């Protein structure tokens, strides 16, 4: 890749950060509209008002060209690198880091990035290990696909891991997920998107849960029929709890339940849960080999 392509990556990263904060994805909007209809059918006035206000807020952000939520999140990039591009990965990472610094300075955005011990804020929304960059490689491709999610903290604080016994089986998994919903309550800004990581090791399970909560589309199903059936069952159960929008009661506790899985050890049954708030923020763009950018 030429020098100018790293400049393009920097510009695209900056734009995606701002787009993700301002423009809610179509699948999430659809989920919220369906939730509003469900609350109307139930005749729950409080829940209906909450869902209506969420939609009004999304519209206002669009009209005023402003942020949907004040939490500018932790920047996460998921990049799929075409193998034919010959990308210099450290330079790609540097461009994405600069893209966050630029978005923060130029908009301006609140910076959330602090040292875990001193709590000193870097002021740039970047720092050691931040932005988080997840790389995938696409054989035979000459494109760069970039997804960006500024993960909000109210929902991220609702993250759970349990190394269940294999003997606890699927029933144990279901029970643990429902307990996580109870524990989360109103705090992650429901209606939420529930990401579940099954199998792997402890760290892989959590990484899969993040992928499920943050990068999957509402209404999508896991290609594995067993996992897809469990997604459907858990969505029904979570909505049957009655926690509702903002934890004030109602039929719409979750907009979606997504499972991502990996094989695991014979003696393990890891379950990780990561919650995403109703905002479901993410944005995506593709950069072609000639530098043409398409925002999706």
């Amino acid at each position: 890749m030429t020098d100018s392509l790293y400049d393009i990556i920097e510009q695209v990263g900056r734009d995606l950060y701002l787009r993700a904060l301002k423009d809610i994805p179509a699948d999430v909007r659809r989920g919220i509209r369906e939730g509003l209809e469900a609350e109307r059918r139930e005749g729950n006035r409080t829940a209906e008002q909450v869902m209506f206000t969420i939609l009004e807020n999304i519209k206002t952000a669009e009209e005023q060209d402003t942020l949907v939520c004040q939490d500018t999140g932790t920047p996460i990039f998921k990049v799929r690198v075409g193998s034919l591009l010959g990308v210099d990965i450290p330079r790609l990472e540097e461009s994405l880091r600069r893209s966050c610094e630029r978005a923060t300075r130029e908009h301006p955005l609140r910076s959330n990035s602090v040292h875990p011990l001193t709590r000193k804020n870097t002021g740039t929304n970047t720092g050691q290990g931040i932005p988080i960059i997840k790389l995938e490689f696409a054989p035979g491709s000459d494109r760069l696909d970039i997804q960006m999610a500024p993960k909000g903290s109210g929902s991220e604080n609702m993250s759970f891991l349990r190394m269940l016994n294999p003997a606890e089986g699927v029933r144990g998994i279901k029970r643990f997920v429902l307990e996580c919903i109870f524990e989360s309550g109103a705090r992650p800004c429901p209606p939420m998107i529930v990401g579940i990581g099954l199998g792997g090791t402890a760290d892989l399970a959590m990484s899969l849960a993040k992928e499920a909560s943050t990068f999957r589309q509402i209404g999508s199903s896991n290609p594995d029929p067993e996992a897809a059936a469990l997604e459907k069952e858990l969505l029904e159960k979570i909505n049957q709890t009655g926690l509702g929008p903002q934890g004030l009661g109602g039929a719409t506790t979750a907009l979606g339940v997504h499972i991502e899985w990996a094989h695991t050890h014979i003696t393990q049954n890891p379950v990780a849960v990561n919650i995403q708030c109703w905002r479901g923020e993410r944005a995506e763009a593709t950069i072609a080999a000639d530098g043409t950018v398409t925002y999706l």
Partner: protein
Amino acid sequence: MATHVLETPLTETAVRRLELEDTVTINGTIFGIRDATQIRIFDEGVPPPVDLTGSVCLHTAPGVRRLPNGRYEKVSIGTTTSTRMDRFVPGLLETYGVRAIVGKGGLLEGSIEAMKRFGGVYLAIVGGAAALETLQIEEIEEVWWEDLMPECLWKFRVKSFGPLIVAIDSRGNSLYRQVQAQVRERIDSMF
């Protein structure tokens, strides 16, 4: 489930009239407070430099732009989770006469009791709906303790601020507690 339009400052009578799931919108001024603001007031023992009697306090740390004249312009003002700042609520009500807390996520038993005793309410705002909040906050009128930026003590002028839902009233009722009990029961019946 009545609808109320309230002007600040709030009286005890106005607050005690509110019932769970009533809808409230506010005109006048509200104060923005967060963790650091209240650590200064209660843990460091520094009284707030402004009278909070009858006030409405919002749990926030706003995103702002500093203007050349030293004033602040709003960029994005939203609400943070109240549960984290639960321990300061009884003091705000008893010592400083605050009448309403606006936040998301709810408050715990000690605060519910204080609301009953001193005449206060918790008004739930829709968390994450910062675009609307920012629009309803007309101006940042004053700011104290700028060294705590962005967790300063903020004074905002608001118009039709809401909708806010009465989630804890001044009679010891909490909508969060009611919903939680129902969720517990339903989960237990599933397994």
